[in-house]
């Protein structure tokens, strides 16, 4: 694998995780438990889709085959998506969505903090920009984790169950392969082992504040780096890509 191919893959991983998470959150549009939360989740979705758009645009240039950000978002099949498994998990109840988002926000927070120092100017600039937005997201989901965890017996039980169910998808966030190894050497990508340490500390500290238990299970799902997904991604893409698949090149 050469540097250009690796960089293209790396951009897809970053962009797809934001895109799929944004698409999931947008499913809440019009269904939020209260108006403010409906607006909050769709605002976060908008930021994430925006981040994905910018990185996919760059990915298209790196790839050099004339693909636009829309081509990459709407015309790739499931196995070519590189989003983390956590992002594609269905929304569940509100506690589940908040727990999933919280785990993802902490990940993005430390990820972008580190990637700001990338030698790749585009990735560095986009990371600095995204970090400002992610800080707001994390502040929002942290407050909800505290309210739900340290709330009523029912809210506590629901958010605890969500954390337990999501835990097996968190190992995949930090898996590294030859793409990471190559770009890390070039100073372009980051060491996910470092991000993992910060993520674990942050999550453990907040769960404790929220009177929640840190899951102890050790089995972790893996595979997103190679395009191996859970059964949920295909359904999400079927909806997201429907229009471009049905009416190729349609514009409106």
């Amino acid at each position, binding site marked *: 694998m050469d540097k250009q191919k690796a960089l293209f893959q790396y951009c897809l991983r970053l962009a797809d995780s934001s895109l799929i998470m944004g698409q999931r959150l947008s499913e809440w549009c019009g269904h939020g438990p209260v108006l403010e939360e409906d607006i909050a989740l769709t605002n976060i979705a*908008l930021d994430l889709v925006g981040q994905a758009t910018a990185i996919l645009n760059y990915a298209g240039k790196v790839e050099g085959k004339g693909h636009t950000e829309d081509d990459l978002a709407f015309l790739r099949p499931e196995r070519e998506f590189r989003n983390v498994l956590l992002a594609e998990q269905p929304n569940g109840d509100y506690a589940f969505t908040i727990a999933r988002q919280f785990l993802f926000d902490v990940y993005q927070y430390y990820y972008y903090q580190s990637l700001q120092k990338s030698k790749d100017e585009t990735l560095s600039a986009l990371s600095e*920009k995204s970090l400002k937005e992610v800080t*707001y997201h994390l502040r929002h989901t942290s407050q909800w984790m505290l309210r739900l965890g340290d709330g009523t017996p029912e809210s506590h039980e629901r958010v605890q169950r969500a954390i337990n169910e999501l835990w097996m998808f968190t190992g995949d966030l930090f898996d590294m392969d030859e793409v990471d190894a190559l770009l890390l050497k070039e100073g372009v990508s980051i060491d996910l082992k470092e991000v993992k340490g910060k993520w674990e500390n942050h999550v453990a500290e907040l769960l404790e504040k929220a009177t929640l238990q840190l899951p102890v299970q050790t089995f972790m799902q893996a595979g997103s780096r190679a395009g191996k997904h859970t059964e949920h991604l295909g359904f999400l893409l079927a909806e997201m890509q429907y229009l471009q698949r049905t009416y190729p090149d349609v514009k409106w």
Partner: protein
Amino acid sequence: MYTETHSREMILKILSEIPDPEIPVITIKDLGILRNVELNSEGCRVTITPTYSGCPAMKAIEDQIRSTLQLHGIGNVEIKTLYAPVWTTDWISDEAKEKLRKYGIAPPEKKSLDKGSLLGKAKHPACPQCGSMNTEMISQFGSTACKALYRCKDCKEPFDYFKCI
């Protein structure tokens, strides 16, 4: 050839008057979205920077730039989106902040986002209607990506706060 009739400064001035599509009392220049104008033999290159990654107004702003220049006979326009340096509310001028306040939007406070306060208390901007500091946050996310929703506990009016980033 428009470069004979329009200098860079003239084009910059024309573009400086384009209002923000979501907050029409301030311009894209006031907000710091309009970064640069360059002229060359082919045409004109306008550099803009987005406020938020997913800001849907960016497309409207691009269209507005093209149509405004078209009216002045400048057709060959390239629009470049610049991500670095990263946009910050610190670029909004004091004059523009005053316009925001008069419009009913509490302007961003001096310093951009304090990264240390992930769990900290929300800021308490002054109410743009009555000036009271007795305000509270309703939601960190408001009607557009750049705003949070607040209410004044004295005059009871809800208001938007332009978030610091």
